[in-house]
């Protein structure tokens, strides 16, 4: 039963107030993209044992989508942040590096 703090309204929401939205920071590929690109965009999900970046919606709350950095092995939460970004903020990456020195995720380090 996770608790994630919504970065928009500051509520420490429990899982039942949230809706999980899968992998974060996806780059959309539309018309003109190759079959490979489109396939990866839709189906090739990161599935790491460890640090993961994912999307959540504060569905039973302010309704905003946000991102969370979480460990899939311990469920430790490194932080939550705005969904209006293409990369995790530096302070969250630093916090992760502190605890998981050799983490990498997709092309993010």
């Amino acid at each position, binding site marked *: *039963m996770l608790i994630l703090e919504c970065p928009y309204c500051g509520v420490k929401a429990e*899982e039942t107030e949230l809706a999980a939205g899968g992998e974060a920071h996806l780059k959309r590929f539309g018309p003109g993209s190759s079959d490979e690109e489109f396939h990866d965009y*839709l*189906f*090739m999900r990161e599935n790491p*044992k460890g640090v993961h970046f*994912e999307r959540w919606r504060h569905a039973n709350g302010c309704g905003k989508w946000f991102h969370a950095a979480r460990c899939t*092995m311990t469920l430790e939460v490194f932080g939550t942040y705005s969904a209006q970004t293409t990369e995790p903020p530096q302070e969250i990456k630093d916090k992760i590096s502190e605890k998981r020195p050799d983490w990498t995720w997709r092309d993010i380090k």
Partner: protein
Amino acid sequence: MFCWICDSLGRHVATIHKCDDKRRRAQRALVHIQWQSRTIGFAMKRYSAFAVAREALRYHTGWERAWRSPEPKRHYDVIIVGAGGHGLATAYFLGKNFGITNVAILEKGWLGGGNTGRNTTIIRSNYLQDPSAALYEKARSLYETMSQDLNYNVMFSPRGVIMLAQTEHEVRGYKRTAHANALQGVQTEWIEPARVKELVPIINLEGPRYPVLGGLWQERGGTARHDAVAWGYARACSDMGMDVIQKCEVTGVRSENGRVVGVDTTKGAIDCDKLGMVVAGNCSHLSEMAGFRLPVESVALQALVSEPIKPCMDVVVMANTVHGYMSQSDKGEMVIGGGTDGFNNYTQRGSFHHIEETVRALNETFPMVSRLKMLRQWGGIVDVTGDRSPLVSKTPVDNIFVNAGWGTGGFKAIPGSGWAMAELMATGHSPLAEEFSMMRFKEGKFIDESVAAGVAH
């Protein structure tokens, strides 16, 4: 020795010729196996009431190990990673159908310790889409004779499976499935509420919220003893001369110019000509070692059992509108399947609200459940693909094959999955596996069982 083909004791050479044509291909396997058995000497003591009686008289001192526990050899024709049901079944059919017995099955923990040993043991094949129906029906039919084939009682119990229809939408969906099944050679029928009540006396037809409008009934669906399936296969594989190696974790996959050559393990490097990855929730992790990715995510799925009570429900019931799945085990426990979490997770622990959702549905559908107690809840990590249907497929690396993505419905598929995977690995092609290739996602050719009222469970 006994005949692998018709499962009769005695002079097998004579028996071979009595075997019918359909099984001709397996005859070569037989000879091979018997040769192995004699030369390597793994002739297995048969299980039977007589054996039990004999052993009872000498205080059971004569029982042998169910499977050997050997150290790995340097090279195998085939390495299967993952000694769960699917991995062991794959190895078993490599030997039984294709005479390939220089096989190692590597398991990082204890065999059958993953989802094979933690599912709700439902077996059915009333799927909507042709490819699924073919694979699951193959599996179901193999379950029918598994105890005899393996000489190990896996307690397959064709007590029947009902999928309840509680909305007009579900009624249409299941009627559609019934029509599809008829053409697929899967025996199912649409039944009216009165029949449902006959089959499930403890059900409350009135709802309250969703009256039972009927159901899709598969009489030859049912359950089996999950651990026994893994143990039975392990025993049979071991007896064919295969090496089931537990506590042996794969730490690397070696390939040379696009073709697999072996794996590194906690018990050293092992070479192989072909590699089968059958590790469910860990498949992304393993495929990464091999240098490719899979369209799979791992999430927690939960289940629970009640305390044991005397028999009160003889069939398996699935109520999808309210998310409740229940059967009664031979021990008397009500075995209940819960939901999956929406987030990636490797902890084998799920979130409790899924248990609540399932239980409140069952309290309403089967009012007597409310006065039972939950004895134990647990979780497993299931691997889910983009269309919630499995992968039985070649991979970007030559001679590496993957069997994964069974999501919440893998147990029922074990023998069929092993059959198809073995065929794919041995011959490079399997009609049963055809549609389950990784390529389907690129083509947009999905196998979606969630359509109509079908469920992936």
